[in-house]
């Protein structure tokens, strides 16, 4: 079930009504309702993979209890690694097996050894990367004594499978979400309204911005050999907005929906295209994944402590893992590698924490220096997106070769005027709201209700008008 479908528009109000009116007096029943609705939500996608989710949940729940109860370090370690191995084992089989089998086979054939490895051609269970990481963070937190193990399997299962975050995050932490699941939720007017507004904005980003860009992005990337360098640059820029609108739109809807249930999810995006360097970009893009890697891989590896070489090694490991997390394709690995290279100068010159505050936080417009910093950061990330979006690494390099040809200075063969205009309006609204959780949270709140509601109706109109062009959420494939 997609957030931007009619089925979800019927599903959500029904669950909300049951949640706030039928089960609101009993937390246990309310959580059972959340669990059933989450499993139903997942089963609508593919009921065959529900068993995998249930198994993963049961495994981590049981392992968590065992780790907590274990008296010795060895016992704790045994349960930790059992859980990690099985979780990553599933992830590897479903997501990476074919990649490794094919890569190994290609390597052997390159040195003259012909092999015939079996490839499984398995369907990737939707959300597997996300719920696996939920489970892993819980297990590691229990092992590290950051939290106690959860004794109520329903509460734990809701933590893993709460439907707004089940298929594409944000990747939650037990320390943040579990206490909310175990506490009676109280209906809050302003929180509810805020949730609705955030859903509306998320839908706008997905349906109007991302899906419209997608039409041209698909056209340009699928026929990249036929277009000029300038058109390919436009294609890359449009993809930068597509993936931002798509994923941050999804995250806004997820956060908004969770708010309707009185639950607060981790923030996943903080206006990343207004970043002044790559380090700031990564503090603002897919925050829940970046912080997951930071907490569970980067810091255990030594983080920014140790020698410069160790720091550089850690940064490369993190970015390569991040690329690999997105999928078994050299395009993602190269994308991660590029970001590691971008990050390197900041690390070497200790400038990776230069830009912590929101850009131009006390001003309407950025100064010239900030403006150019944002432009080149956007340029670098957009360049990396070419590798992320390309069908394979060869296409990516061919794409880049055309970008840096003479045709870069020609007039683009495709100029999607309406899409560019909507992007311009979108950027203005995002800039105006960059100090907030999401761009329209404070927009027009001090103006008359007529003006405010007119704006909301306009958003509704745009969402409905452009909703014919259904595109899958990009991050569902991860």
């Amino acid at each position, binding site marked *: 079930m997609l957030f931007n479908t009619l089925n979800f528009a019927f599903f959500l109000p029904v669950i909300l009504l049951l949640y706030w009116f039928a089960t609101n007096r009993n937390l246990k029943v309310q959580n059972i309702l959340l669990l059933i609705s989450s499993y139903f939500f997942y089963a609508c996608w593919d009921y065959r993979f529900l068993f995998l989710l249930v198994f993963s949940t049961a495994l981590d729940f049981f392992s968590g209890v065992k780790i907590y109860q274990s008296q010795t370090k060895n016992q704790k370690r045994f349960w930790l690694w059992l859980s990690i191995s099985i979780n990553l084992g599933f992830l590897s089989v479903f997501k990476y097996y074919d990649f490794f089998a094919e890569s190994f086979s290609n390597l052997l054939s390159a040195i003259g050894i012909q092999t015939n490895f079996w490839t499984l051609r398995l369907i990737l269970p939707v959300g597997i990367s996300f719920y696996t990481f939920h489970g892993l963070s819980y297990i590691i937190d229990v092992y590290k004594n950051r939290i106690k193990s959860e004794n109520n399997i329903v509460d734990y299962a809701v933590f893993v499978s709460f439907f707004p975050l089940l298929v594409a995050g944000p990747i939650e932490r037990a320390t943040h979400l579990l206490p909310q699941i175990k506490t009676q939720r109280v209906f809050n*007017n302003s929180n509810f309204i805020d949730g609705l507004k955030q859903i509306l904005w998320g839908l706008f980003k997905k349906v109007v911005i991302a899906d419209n860009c997608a039409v041209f992005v698909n056209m340009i990337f699928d026929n990249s050999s036929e277009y000029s360098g300038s058109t390919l640059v436009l294609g890359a820029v449009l993809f930068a907005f597509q993936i931002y609108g798509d994923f941050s739109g999804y995250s806004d809807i997820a956060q908004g929906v969770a708010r309707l249930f009185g639950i607060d999810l981790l923030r996943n995006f903080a206006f990343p295209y207004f970043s002044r360097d790559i380090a700031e970009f990564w503090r603002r893009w897919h925050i829940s994944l970046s912080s997951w890697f930071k907490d569970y891989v980067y810091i255990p590896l030594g983080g920014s402590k140790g020698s410069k070489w160790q720091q550089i090694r850690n940064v490369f490991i993190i970015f390569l893992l991040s690329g690999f997390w997105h999928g078994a394709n050299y395009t993602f690995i190269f994308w991660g590698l590029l970001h590691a290279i971008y990050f390197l100068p900041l690390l070497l010159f200790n400038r990776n924490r230069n830009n912590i505050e929101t850009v131009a936080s006390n001003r309407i417009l950025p100064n010239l220096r900030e403006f150019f910093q944002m432009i080149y950061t956007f340029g670098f990330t957009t360049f990396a997106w070419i590798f992320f979006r390309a069908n394979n690494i060869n296409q990516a390099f061919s794409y880049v070769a055309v970008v840096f040809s003479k045709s870069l200075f020609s007039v683009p063969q495709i100029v999607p005027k309406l899409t560019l205009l909507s992007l311009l309006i979108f950027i203005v609204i995002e800039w105006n709201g960059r100090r907030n959780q999401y761009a329209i949270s404070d927009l027009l709140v001090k103006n008359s209700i007529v003006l405010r509601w007119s704006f909301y109706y306009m958003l*509704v109109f745009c969402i409905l008008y452009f909703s014919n062009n259904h595109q899958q959420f990009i991050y569902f494939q991860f």
Partner: protein
Amino acid sequence: MENIKAKIALFAIPILLFWGITEYFYRTIPNNYSVKNQYIENHSKDIEVLLFGDSHCLYGLNPSYFSKHTFNLSNVSQTIYFDKLLLLEHIDNLPNLKQVVFCIEYTNLSQKDDTDEDQFRKYYYQYFMDLKVPIIKDYDIKQYSLALTQNFKKTIDLYIRYLKTGTILDCNPDGWGNNYKKENRISPETVAKNRAQSQEDGSTDFNLNIARMDTIIAECNKRKIKVLIVSMPQTKIYTSYLNPKKLKSIFKTCNQFQENNNRTVHYLNLFNDNRFTDEDFYDADHLNDQGAKKCSKIVNAYLNSISSN
């Protein structure tokens, strides 16, 4: 909580009002499906020839050039799945039906059920043409609201068209398509390439639709109704972008229908017919008025020739 309920209700009023008006609009304003159903019910005793197929048939076969009483029951993106449902729905109410024509070209035999193209149309077949459509699930919400079946942009476009012209029909009283959209006519080669690419499903598995055609033929045989399968003409440029192996397989399958049903099933292949030039087409694969006239006369002559056998 009371405050928020009132706010949400107030905010929803214009949206619900629009939905209600749209529902009324869709249910009451005549469309291709409703007028075709009405025609076939009102002329059930007169119809001698029925034409089935997708947009190639809708725009390419004009009943006014047929010598027998003919009605074009085809529609845009109509699959063999719906051809069969329509035929079985009406066949026993058409006492004078003598011949049926099915248009089969590149996409028809390999088409799967419930594709994107069917997403709003299946509800229209159910609601306006009184068909029981098995691909619509019992719990499918859209079957209860036509306003929800169409996308909003299309709805707005239809409102504008209705306000401008007073109709949303794309066919004349005989069921022939007379409103082919001529805007966005980019270079014929690009159109041909794009159309060929968009229609390429990569499948050569025809079993599902062969079984349907076998059922159709068997039902027609029982009632001594002759079946003519026609592969409609296409431009050379469009044909050049198609998979030749698949094309060959389609023609072979159509010929087999004829061979397996001697004298009751006939096959007329106009796909690469040299009598048609680029002047006869709106675009890569749809005949224009002139082409439809030419094609209708050829098909009519063929029908007359086989009716005496």
